């Protein structure tokens, strides 16, 4: 049975067959396998190359921490990269050959893993953190920017399933996403909410918000405490 299943999987043939037979546990194992080695198709790249096996990400290259993000959100983002609605030049080359089932599996896996915060590239800048904290907790309503925590949850711990946690995310990733929303082609945000908000901020304010959330400790899982 397991040989049979594996051969089906590595052939990457039958999404329908799999989803009707595989249990959540099998899907999870398959997700871990993709994270570790890719899905077996030629040239496939393992997620862990940039996100690590436990989903801590790589602050040095601004690769995001994804451990404990909701499966819904991870799946939505990978699909967005495939469709081109989410600007992600690196990810696009990695996920193009993942099937819908692969994506669901890997999302399930990374939603389930836990990992401590990894050291960021530089210590938090106190002046930026103070400004970022004000924007994050109180907003800049004169520019139509509500407090970040209104939609990302208390201290940015996430509001499942649509609003990811940003608490303890690395600063390189956070700043790059704000820039992508503001000027590049990240347009997978519901109703263009983030595009509007990121555009209303100045570059210093974007940086400050990134510094602030990066200075916090991440939640163990989106929408929950530490």
């Amino acid at each position: 049975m397991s040989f049979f299943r594996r051969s089906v999987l590595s052939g990457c043939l039958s999404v329908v067959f799999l989803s009707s037979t595989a249990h959540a546990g099998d899907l999870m194992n398959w997700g871990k396998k993709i994270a570790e080695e890719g899905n077996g198709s030629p040239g496939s790249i393992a997620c862990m190359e940039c996100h690590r096996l436990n989903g801590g990400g790589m602050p040095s290259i601004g690769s995001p921490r994804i451990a404990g993000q909701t499966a819904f959100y991870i799946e939505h983002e990978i699909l967005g990269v495939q469709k081109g609605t989410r600007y992600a030049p690196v990810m696009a080359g990695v996920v193009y050959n993942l099937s819908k089932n692969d994506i669901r599996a890997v999302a399930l896996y990374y939603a389930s893993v836990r990992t401590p915060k990894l050291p960021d590239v530089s210590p938090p800048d106190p002046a930026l953190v103070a400004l970022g904290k004000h924007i994050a907790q109180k907003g800049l309503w004169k520019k139509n920017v509500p407090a970040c925590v209104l939609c990302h949850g208390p201290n940015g711990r996430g509001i499942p399933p649509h609003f990811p946690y940003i608490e303890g995310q690395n600063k390189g990733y956070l700043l790059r996403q704000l820039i992508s929303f503001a000027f590049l082609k990240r347009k997978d945000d519901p109703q263009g909410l983030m595009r509007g908000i990121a555009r209303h901020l100045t570059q210093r304010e974007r940086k400050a918000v990134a510094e602030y959330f990066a200075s916090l400790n991440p939640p163990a899982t989106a929408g929950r405490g530490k």
Partner: protein
Amino acid sequence: MKIRSSLLVVASATLLFSGSQSFPPIARGQEPATFQPPSDSEIPSGPFGDLVRKGEHIFTQTGVYARPYVGNDLTCESCHLDRGRKPYAAPLWGAYVSYPRFRTKNNKVSRLGERIQGCFRFSMNGTPPPLDSETIRSLVAYSFWMSRGAPVGVKLAGQGMYRMPRPKRQPDPFRGKKVYAARCALCHGADGLGATSGHDVAFPPVWGPRSYNMGAGLAKVSKLAGFVKMNMPLSKGDTLTNQESWDVAAYVDSQPRPADPRKIR
């Protein structure tokens, strides 16, 4: 009018000369001429400042700091956005200078404290705190501080809620349901019950047992439509058309919620 147009000139000049920024910040739906409340750093130290800060805590975390008087999952800030500072979201600086006033709601001249009691009874579906309680006193102090420099008894831009022009078509909950699904359900849920983050209420319920009751201001379609028009979705105020705002308000207010306490028994 003259003041406003010169302000606009200044504002557009600022935008022109803000240099490197290719996407100038645009504050839609907010007139530059609205009253500016003092900033947080200006809260004085001492007993008065303490009372103001206490008021702000009650305002933003009502269920924590005024627990005995709260009967649902809302906070003052759920409707009075930006900690009671945002124009057209019934800002406190507009409220403080408008009381005492005659209200048709109860055919009485009410003081601000009495008006706040009404918030607890209807919008918070709870129990009115006594007028001399610390809860009311600190909320009044918070409002007083925020209205520093505002003219008393004069109509101010952005005061109260936005008064909607009459709808072209009769507000229709069925059309409103579609607007709700497209623009509101993301945060408030298709079931209107809001969303939580861990144990905390994150997005307020807009109907159901933990929302405002039938006696609240927002239970009136015109009031809710004005609030939605200028403020919803967050950061996207003034993007729904007037008709959409009327329709979605009709839909939300057609949903079940706790009864008006004046009409029970």
